[in-house]
């Protein structure tokens, strides 16, 4: 028996099928005005976005919540319209660590499946000074948890 469960770094995968062309959805990720509208979770009063839509270009999404601004920053790694967008993502909610977000756009007739993969999540969020087990935690992935929690 193989003693190792195959694992990949800590990640979250979220999917949604949207009734719109891939191009329209893709563009909404890189248009500051569009971002200002949909990158606004419930507790956020307003969002301001600045976007340099090219590989190596940076972005900034500032969400105003009651206690002040929450800043999200990163750099675009892949800009492949309308198939894939990949960028780093750093905010206080990632413990100010750089994480990686990849968005895939898959045509399904007149609709598009959008798949967001958020990787390299800060496994140290619980406790950053116990390095003995954080390396193991890096390998704790969604599939593993699904298999075990089921």
């Amino acid at each position: 028996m193989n003693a190792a469960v195959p694992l990949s770094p800590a990640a979250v995968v979220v999917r949604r099928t949207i009734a719109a062309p891939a191009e329209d959805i893709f563009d909404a990720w890189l248009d500051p005005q569009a971002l200002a509208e949909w990158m606004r979770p419930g507790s956020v009063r307003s969002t301001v976005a600045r976007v340099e839509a090219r590989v190596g270009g940076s972005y900034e999404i500032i969400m105003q919540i009651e206690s002040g601004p929450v800043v999200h920053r990163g750099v675009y790694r892949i800009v492949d319209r309308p198939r894939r967008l990949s960028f780093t993502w750093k905010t206080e909610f990632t413990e100010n660590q750089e994480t990686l977000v990849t968005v895939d756009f898959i045509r399904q007739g007149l609709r598009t499946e959008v798949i967001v993969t958020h990787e390299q999540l800060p496994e140290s969020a619980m406790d950053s000074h116990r390095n003995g087990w954080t390396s193991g935690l890096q390998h704790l992935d969604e599939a593993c948890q699904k298999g075990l929690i089921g």
Partner: protein
Amino acid sequence: MGEYQSDRLDGVFNALCDPTRRAILARLTDADARVTDIAGDFPISLNSISKHIRMLERAGLLRRSIVGRDHVLTLNAEPLAEAQLWIEKYRRFWEGRLAALDAFVTNKKRNRK
């Protein structure tokens, strides 16, 4: 997240950071098993396996019941659900954003028509 909960998560993740322990848990997702059966699956001593099992027990990831002379192990997935919590915040964020993206893109399309 409270102190108590993060202490428990530490124990869970500590237990999960070892490939042998993950493999033991994976084995128990299929069915309960006797300690001796599990020991037979791994090329390490019964003593080492017992240590791994005790660690998983301490983390609350498995339960031991004694049936006659056999020690039977059962997976307890509850602490894993807790471990899932920290990753859950990211999932919720993106689910919420994709719902908003959907509304934004489809409304825009409707308005254009």
